[in-house]
């Protein structure tokens, strides 16, 4: 097969652009998935007081501002060598779980869910939240809007604003919570838990009750046996805010469990000439290309991988759903056998939604959140810190180095989507292999089934696209593998 080299100067800045290279016999030779990446992050940060990072980094991503706020806050705590008081940590957990509840709600009802609620072959114009409402009723729409408002209200109470919170400081939190505010958040938490039960019912009635959808979820076209990464607590239970990073192999065996500060010992980044976005991999296994298996360093960091990397959930409803998830998909409710079906990520996200709602209520009920002791003065400057949280889209790492005055000298981020870059590429290729041959007419249904492979990861495409027309476009280009010549292109707006 002829080698295709794309000069770095002319590399395309695609937005959800997929290049497929097809051999003469119709088989797929290779697949390239291109996304844009924001540039100049380190330059932008260097020279700024490190305590600004928790506010600045919320602006680099319009989708996960709360995740960046928390990762930055944890990294900044480490830079100053300070541990926030217990009440402050509980407030951070509370606001972060409320954010998760809203974010996962949006994805299930507006982004990923429509593929199943409306069906993968439904026209794009119908495959959205309006189609979901048409199928499950107007009340569902009202519930979704109300759920979003609940999450935002808690973020506003604790975080100071509905979005882009400004509450975490090195050593704690900026704002104390009153008893009245606690009472309001308990009520919100209770409503959130009820909403999570409603969502489980929707999942059962509309998705799991449809054998065709379950078969689609479990089909080989959407399966990948990679390593799984996720933050866990001392008992290996899922934790979005704190703990150690655990990596479990496709065989269910623990590969490693590390403290955030040690991440560079375990994760390295591979570079491909056609993409600005790097491909993180497990350092001790090495980069072996876009391949599955225990001998490949490719890993996933997603709702599905978080469940696979854990031994369960800390809240009762979520634990019950965790067990049902594994019982249904692996016949082993313990979760010791990983689920490798990429589309099961949507169900895993619902398990996490239930957990986020229950955790929100549990932290809201904890009277310590109204304590006055929400801040510990930093004792000095250590000069380096790493903060890791689980963003909804995957493990998020912030790493800062500073001078003796706590001015940033180096900054590095590994964001959720970057973790999944190799796995996303592999998922697209796997889906495409089953759908595209030379001469295949590219229909909207085929495009959507390929798109579904990466939508499960909910990847960040630099937050937005800048091309006409309309919404997030997908461009698929089929090349002759020998000549590189473009055989066919297809476009659609997702």
């Amino acid at each position, binding site marked *: 097969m002829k080698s295709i080299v794309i000069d770095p100067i002319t590399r395309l*800045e695609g937005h*959800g652009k997929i290049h497929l290279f097809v051999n003469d016999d119709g088989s797929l030779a290779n697949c390239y998935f291109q996304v*844009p*990446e*924001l*540039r*100049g*992050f380190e*330059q*932008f940060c260097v020279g700024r007081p490190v305590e600004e990072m928790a506010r*600045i980094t919320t*602006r*680099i991503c*319009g*989708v996960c501002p709360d995740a960046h706020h928390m990762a930055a806050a944890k990294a900044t705590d480490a830079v100053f060598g300070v541990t926030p008081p217990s009440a402050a940590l509980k407030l951070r957990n509370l606001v972060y779980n409320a954010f998760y509840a809203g974010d996962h709600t*949006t*994805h299930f009802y*507006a*982004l990923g869910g429509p593929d199943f609620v409306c069906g993968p072959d439904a026209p794009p114009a119908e495959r*959205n*939240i*309006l189609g979901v*409402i048409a199928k499950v009723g*107007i009340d569902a*729409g*009202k519930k979704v*809007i109300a759920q*979003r408002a609940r999450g935002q209200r808690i973020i506003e109470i604790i975080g100071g*604003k*509905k*979005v*882009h919170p400004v509450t975490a400081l090195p050593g704690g939190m900026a704002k104390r919570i009153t008893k009245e505010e606690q009472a309001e958040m308990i009520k919100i938490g209770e409503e959130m838990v009820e909403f999570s039960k409603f969502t489980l019912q929707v999942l059962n009635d509309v998705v799991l009750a449809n054998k065709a959808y379950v078969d689609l979820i479990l089909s080989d076209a959407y399966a990948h046996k990679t390593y799984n990464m996720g933050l866990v607590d001392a008992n290996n239970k899922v934790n979005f805010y704190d703990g150690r990073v655990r990596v479990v192999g496709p065989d269910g065996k623990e590969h490693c469990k590390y403290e955030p500060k040690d991440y560079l010992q375990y994760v390295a980044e591979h570079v491909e000439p056609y993409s600005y976005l790097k491909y993180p991999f497990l350092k001790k296994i090495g980069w072996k290309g876009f391949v599955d298996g225990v001998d490949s360093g490719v890993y996933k960091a997603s709702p599905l991988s978080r469940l696979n990397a854990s031994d369960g959930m800390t809240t009762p409803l979520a634990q019950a759903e965790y067990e049902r998830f594994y019982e249904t998909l692996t016949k082993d409710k313990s979760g010791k056998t990983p689920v490798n079906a990429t589309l099961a990520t949507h169900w895993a996200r619902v398990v996490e939604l239930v957990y986020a709602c229950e955790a929100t209520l549990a932290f809201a009920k904890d009277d310590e959140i109204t304590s006055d002791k929400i801040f510990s003065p930093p004792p000095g400057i250590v000069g380096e810190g790493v903060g890791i949280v689980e963003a909804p889209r995957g493990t998020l790492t912030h790493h800062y180095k500073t001078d003796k005055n706590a001015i940033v000298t180096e900054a590095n981020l590994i964001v959720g989507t970057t973790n999944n870059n190799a796995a996303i590429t592999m998922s697209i290729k796997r889906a495409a292999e089953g759908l595209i041959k030379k001469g295949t007419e590219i229909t909207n249904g085929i495009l959507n089934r390929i798109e579904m492979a990466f*939508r499960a990861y*909910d*990847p*960040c*495409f*630099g*937050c*937005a*696209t*800048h*091309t*006409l*027309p*309309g*919404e*997030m476009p997908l461009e698929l280009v089929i090349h002759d593998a020998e000549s590189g010549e473009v055989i066919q292109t297809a476009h659609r707006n*997702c």
Partner: protein
Amino acid sequence: MGNVVTSAKPVLVLCLGNEILSDDGFGPEVARRLQDEDMHDLPADVVFAPLAGFHLLDLLVGRKRVLIVDTIRTGTAEVGTLHHFPAGALTPSHSLTTSHQISLPTALELGRQLSLEMPDVVDVLAVEAQDLETLSEELTPAVRAALKQTLDFVRSWIRQNSSEEPSR
């Protein structure tokens, strides 16, 4: 940062973008300059929001006429060119296109289906951008040069839309 509106006026100029992403800072800069003018005499609210999707619902509810100021990259026009998409046309500007959220038309239709009071008119004014990927607090020169024309357009739009009865 986004502004909190305490008493919503029926006419809204909604400036979208990100102050630290090069030309995406266009919307915030337009908002800042308009807000520096005497807001009490302006028959419209001017709001900057680094938001999209569902968040737009919160900002649009209860408004009659809305002008969205944003950036765009068509690749077919000179950097700094202003594009005006009147109500009903495609709204493909930068902040209105995201894979993580619902689109503006979907947000409007969702609001209507949920019996929320949604605007009758949503226009989009977008400047052709050069750089929307580099983290920087500076606009590129051609986009900065478009600010005066933009402010003139927005003031004119406000005057026209404040005096007209919204059409149903």
